[in-house]
Each structure stands twice: as C-alpha cells, then as structure tokens.
C-alpha cells in the first residue's frame, strides 16, 4: 500500500455500528441498506484502485426525502458520509473509510422531464452521463460534457467533480451546462438552487456547489442544458515528426480564429499501444499525432478542414487522413477512446490530469519525459490539446511496491511542473485524495483556509467526504459537532 495517508477509523463510531445500521434501516427499507461484508466490498474503491477501504455500511436511497433523512441521521450521529455516484473517480473522490456510510445515488436514475423548446432536461442524478444524451438523441439533441467514463459515470459525480471531456473546448464543462439542482444539506434540508432559467438569483451557489467534490451536500436532481446536435461532425488526423511541431500547430489553429470542437494529442508510445489494441490505422512513423474534429454542414466542414489542413502543412505535418465516411470517423476516434483500456492491457498505469498554458506545451512535455526517465518509468502522453489539459499515463507494475511508489513520485513531479508552468493540478478529474497533499503547491495557506471556511459553512463537523481535497495537517478547526 502506498503513500497517501487516510483517516484512522473512529472506534467509538465502529462500536455503534449496529445501532447506526438499525437507524438507516428505519429510513431506507430492504435492499437499500447494504451490510454484509461481501456486498460492501463492491464499494471499497473507485477508479483509483490502488486505494481500498471497506465502508461500515452502504445506503442506496430511492428518494430525495430518504437522502435528506439519511444525511440528517448521520449528522446527528456524527458519522462520516461518503457520497458516491458510479465510483469512476480517478482521483479517489469516492474512496470510502471504515467508519463511514457510503451514500450512493444509483437507485435514483430516472430522466424526469425533457423540455425541447426550452432546451433543458430534468434528471435524477444517478442517471449516467450517456443516459442523458441517449434519452434525447432521437430528438436531435445532446448533453455536451462527455468525460471518457460517460458510459458509467453519473450526473451526481459529474456535478460533484465539475467533469469535462474531449468536447469542452467548444461546449464547456459541467458547470457551464448546469441550470439547477435539488441540493440536500448535511442537516437534511432540501434546497432548490437555480431552476430552468439561464440565470439563478443571488450569489452563484450553483457554481460553488459544482466541483465541491461531495464535501458540501448531496445533489439528487439536476436540470441540465441540452444542445441541438450539429448537422455533421468529422475528424481529421495529422501526424507530425515531433511533439513540438504538433504543439505549435495547435497554437496556430486557435490563433487563426478556428475553434474546433476537439483537438486531441497522442505521442508515439500512446499511438503504438492504441494501434496494437484498436487497429485504428494510426501512423506508426510519426513523433506525435493530433485528432482535430470540426462540426457543421458538409460544405462547412470541408472549408474548415481545408483551413486547418493548410496550417498543419506549414507546421510540418507528414501525415493527414480525413474521415470520408462515418465508419472512418469512428475508426479515428476508436483508438483515442480506447486509449485507457488499451494502456491497461500492456501495463498498470496512473493517469495524471494537470492543465498547462498551451504555449508551454513543448517545455512541459520535455520535462515530463525527464521526470519519468529519472524514475526509470515509461510515460504515454494523451491529452486535450486545445485546452492544455494533459493526461500523461505513467506506466508501472502494481505488484511491485517500489514501482508504484516511483510512479506516484513521477506523477507528483509532473503535477508540480504543471503548476510551475502556470497551470494547475487537475483539469477535470478533481483533487480527491490523489492530489490532496499537493494542494499546498497550488494554493497559499490563506487561500486554503478560505476554502476550508466555505466547507465549514455547509459541514461544520467535517463529516462529508472528510479525507479529501485538503491536506490532513493544518486543517481548520472543526466546529463543535
């Protein structure tokens, strides 16, 4: 087991386990309270699989009212609560602890209302991200934020982490597509924030809650902005002799007044691994690759791709392949979208998530190479190039504790390099436990104190997802519970 310290369970809470379970059963009947160890084990981790803790009990309410009663009960009893969507967090955002109640929204997964004229949908937050788009695709609409885990991840988790995706260069992230929420406080109050109008009144509570990593309360319903599908979309794939040439091309495209819906970057190692797995027809003799996607009518796409193609050529692109059919478009995306799975076949890896100013791309890529070489590890770089959100995948061997610790050290150094370059620790995965101890590199003591004060307004006793986001030392004093 490795480096990140977790909170020691409170024996006084563990001693009251039976009474706590009985209290929860009085609120949520039947299978909604999960007690047996075998079943609880299914909740012991999220997608940051190196860390596991079996929770004391898992509760899966079916209504907002039950969520409110569970939270009020836990608040009264002083029991920590770990909110959970689908458990796909790469940052350990949903990692349980032994003395905590895991509160999952999985049983609340209905699409409640579709309003095409006003371009909104109302959902229960246990619905998956893709489930939202699937419910409206036949009407010609979609929900824009598209994290890689969209088949599994829930809107609850997306709101908690302010999730992004490949297409946010044009359409923004969760916070830009969220109009209202039903928010349940730890004290069990049900608060409606925002609604189905574009602006919410008062202070921007919606903006504050989105991305609060399950530390303020639980969001049980959400009103989302939906968008009409473009007439068409088409990717083009470019190969470049070097990462530097690809990086310069990205800057030139944006500088020329063209904002594609997505610009994805892959380096040589990433190309090889994805190509071995997905047979997407990626060029093997290039140093880096870009997938650029544009939208519009056929003629509009032709025109934009011609402009982009000309820019790529002047930046030394040695390979270009435009998708001529939907099948060819799917093939181009297939390799990229299966990247994390393909990588998992050849090696264990940790996926980092820093963001940098795109102009610093060449120097940061060089630095990432040096950092991993110093640890004797390989790194594959895949990222959303248009917005500077890097996903270096550091390859290691999970069965070798030394290898894991080297990978974690490399990951840490990469994120510090991102901060040093004027960027940040996390672009879309969230802080969770993974980047918690690096927060002092990004923020001053004064800044962290103010953020912790904000948490304390919602959660004075620090019961909600308490081990996350802030380093365990120098925390704000808990108010008397």
């Amino acid at each position: 087991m490795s480096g990140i310290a977790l909170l020691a369970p409170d024996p006084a809470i563990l001693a009251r386990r039976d009474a706590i379970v009985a209290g929860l059963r009085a609120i949520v009947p039947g299978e909604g309270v999960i007690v047996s160890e075998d079943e609880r084990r299914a909740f012991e981790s999220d997608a940051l699989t190196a860390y596991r803790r079996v929770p004391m009990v898992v509760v899966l309410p079916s209504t907002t009212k039950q969520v409110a009663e569970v939270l009020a009960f836990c608040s009264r009893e002083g029991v920590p609560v770990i909110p959970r969507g689908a458990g796909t967090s790469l940052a350990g955002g949903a990692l349980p602890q032994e003395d905590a109640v895991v509160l999952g929204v999985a049983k609340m997964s209905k699409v409640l209302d579709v309003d095409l004229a006003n371009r909104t949908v109302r959902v229960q937050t246990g619905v998956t991200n893709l489930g939202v788009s699937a419910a409206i695709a036949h009407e010609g609409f979609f929900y824009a934020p598209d994290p890689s885990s969209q088949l599994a991840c829930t809107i609850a988790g997306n709101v908690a982490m302010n999730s992004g995706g490949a297409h946010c260069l044009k359409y923004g992230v969760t916070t830009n597509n969220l109009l209202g929420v039903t928010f349940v406080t730890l004290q069990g109050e049900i608060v409606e924030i925002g609604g189905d109008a574009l602006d919410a009144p008062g202070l921007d509570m919606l903006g504050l809650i989105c991305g609060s990593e399950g530390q303020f309360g639980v969001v049980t319903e959400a009103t989302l902005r939906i968008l009409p599908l473009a007439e068409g979309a088409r990717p083009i794939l470019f190969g470049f002799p070097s990462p530097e040439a690809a990086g310069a091309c990205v800057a030139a495209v944006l500088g020329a007044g063209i904002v594609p819906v997505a610009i994805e970057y892959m380096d040589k190692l990433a190309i090889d691994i994805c190509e071995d797995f997905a047979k997407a027809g990626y060029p093997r003799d290039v140093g880096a690759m870009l997938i650029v996607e544009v939208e519009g009518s056929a003629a509009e796409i032709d025109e934009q791709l011609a402009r982009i193609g000309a820019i790529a050529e002047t930046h030394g692109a040695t390979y270009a392949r435009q998708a001529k059919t939907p099948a060819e478009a799917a093939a181009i995306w297939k390799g990229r979208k299966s990247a994390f799975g393909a990588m998992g076949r050849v090696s264990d890896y940790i996926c980092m998530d820093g963001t940098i100013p795109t102009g610093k791309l060449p120097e940061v890529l060089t630095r990432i190479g040096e950092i991993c070489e110093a640890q004797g590890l390989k790194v594959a770089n895949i990222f959303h190039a248009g917005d500077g959100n890097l996903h270096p995948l550091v390859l290691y061997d999970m069965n070798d504790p030394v290898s894991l610790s080297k990978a974690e050290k490399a990951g840490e150094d990469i994120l510090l390099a991102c901060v040093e370059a004027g960027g940040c620790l996390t672009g879309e995965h969230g802080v969770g436990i993974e980047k918690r101890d690096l927060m002092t590199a990004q923020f001053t003591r004064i800044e962290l104190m103010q953020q912790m004060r904000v948490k304390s307004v919602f959660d004075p006793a620090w019961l909600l997802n308490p081990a996350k986001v802030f380093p365990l030392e120098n925390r704000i004093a808990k108010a008397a519970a």
Partner: protein
Amino acid sequence: MSETVSPFDEAGIEATIREAVDAKTPILIRGAGSRSGLGRPVQAGITLSTERLTGVTLLEPSELVVSAKAGTPVAEVEAELARVGQRLAFEPLDHRALYGTASEPTIGGLVATNASGPRRVIAGAARDALIGVRLTTGRAETIRSGGRVMKNVTGYDLVKFACGSHGVLGVVTEATFKTLPIAETEATLVLEGLDDAHGVAALCAAMGTPFEVSGAAHLPALNGAPSRTCLRLENFESQVAYRAGQLASRLKSFGTASRLDADASRALWREIGAAASLLGSPERAVWRISVAPTRGPAVVARLGPLAEAHVYDWSGGLIWVATSAAGDAGASTLRPIVREARGHATLVRAPEAVRAAVDVFEPEAPALARLTAGLRASFDPAGVLNPGRMHAR
C-alpha cells in the same frame, strides 16, 4: 458624501479594508460607477475605488486568454483583444444607456455584476468565461481562485462564486477571461408582426436548430412599428450565408424573414443589449425577469398594464419589463406572478428610495438564505463590504 480611497495596489486595498474593519466602517466598492444604480443603496463611510488598479496583465491569443486589473476599462480590454482578432468569450452588457451614466465600465464592475448581453444564449455569461480571479476579502486577505487555463477543477470554484457577488465577498482586483476569435461576419434575420407567444416560439425553434444562433430577441410592436423577432448568426462569411438560408427556411411557418447585413445587425444588437431605448422613458423602473422561455409570454400577459413596455432577449428567457417607478415599482404584483412561473426577478432600475424599500434581488428561501449568510460571513465576518447591497441586513 463619504471619503473616497483609491489604492494603487492590493496591499492598499487590504490596508483600507483592515482599517474599516477595525473602525467598523462600511465600505462601498466602486469601479467607474457606470452601474452604481444596480442593487440596494449602501450606507457607507468609505468609498473604495479600484480606478487606479489598471492594465491588461496577460494577453495570449494562441491560448485564448486575457487578464486585466479591476479598474481597467472594458473598452481597453476589448480594444487590445480586437488588435489580435479576438474578443471576450461572452458578450459584456453595457449598463450606461439604462442608467444614463457616462463613465467607462470597468472589468471589476463587469465581474461583480456578471453583466452578460445577448450572446449569453449560446456563449454563456461572464461567469462562464471567467477562469480566474484575485479577490481581496473582508478579512483583508487576497486570495486567488482558478487561474489562466481553460480547464481547472483544483479546489472549490470561488471564481464563479465571486462573479455576480456585487462586492459582498470581496474586492475583485484582477480577472482572467477566456477569449474567442471575432467572427468574420454577422447577419440578423428578422420576422415581423408576430405576437409575443409566436415570437418566443420562433426564437425557441431557432435555438433548437444546429445553426448556432448567437442572439435571439423579440421586440414587441412599438409606436406603430410592427414587432420584430430577431435572430443573429455570427461566423465565417460562407457559413453565415448558408445558415441564414437554412434558418429562414426552417422558420417559414412563422413568416418570411428579412436579412440585416453586418453593420445593421451590429447596431441592432447594441440596442437590444442595452435594452434602455426599447423601454421608453428613463423615469420608468426596469425589471429583469429570468424564466424558462416558453413561460415568458404568459408572465407578461398576467402583468397586464403594469408592464408599460417589455423586450424578450435570450430566446425569451430574459424579459426586460418597464413599470411605473411609483410606490414599490410593481414589486408586490410582479414577484408572485414571476414566482408562479418558476422564474425570478431583479429590480435593475428604480429611484434610490424604492431600491431601499423593496427587495431588489429575489428574496431567498430560508434554508438558502442561511447558507448565503454563512458564506458571506466566512469571507467578510465584520460585514463591512457593500453591506445591504444584495439583501436588507
């Protein structure tokens, strides 16, 4: 008239706030004052001006980002961006016509009021384009949130929380925005003679097409001129031409659309954004109603003669309503009607006495009001920053 302090830097702002906290003196925060009529009046002992905090501090066209200090005129930032073919990713709302003010609006005021114009309907508000702030809180501490990169979920999103907070959390000292290329050209399709319900239906139908309509407003009949339902397209020349044709054809059931070229389109949207000239006498009070677009026309109908003039922007999701400024400016009638439509209303223009007596912003439900009060106190425990600006104390 209270004393005005104009610090040169953040240290000066911190010192001013520290002294005010010690002396329990309320502070009114001021940029250029172009929108000082927005919000409840503040009884202040000191006016803290950001006018000396000026300058564009970062401009990276290839990264689509610009930063400026709070006192920088919005016009200066826009001019710097225009030199490299870009503009702010949202459309700032200029309040000068509404308030009859002349001073150049500042970046700080723009952030503090989340002032967003017609492009809001597709490009988002100021809060969506804002990616970083520096904020000196009521604790006389300067904190950063966000940064200069597009995607950033490191720590809580205090950027959004500061935007539109009307100075009650802190003084915004510097802001960083996402930028976008200026569209090569624009055009506006105009349908004439539709009533409110059909006009808003046409706007909603247009917003449901893939043609990226970047302005959607319905201007009711005025002084004998027919109503105008206006749809803006901004893009490359060839795309605008293609999309205008497609859009007009999709909207055929609403009538035959005429087309305004780029210059006429720009002039029209300046007028719609400012709204003032469409709302009649400057003596009238003005409300902004936010509501789901399709429920807007029924709200206006229920207001009856109380609504002396009105304009729909944001596909109908924003209704500017002019009322008589007498009494409570119509608050006691208007608020329940808007609330029943699940919307909310802000009294954006009214005489000071009216704004002191009625809720300017939508009153909050008790649970939300408690959270708001707690959060404000966490930033400004002494309550010295713009006290009473948003809600009566």
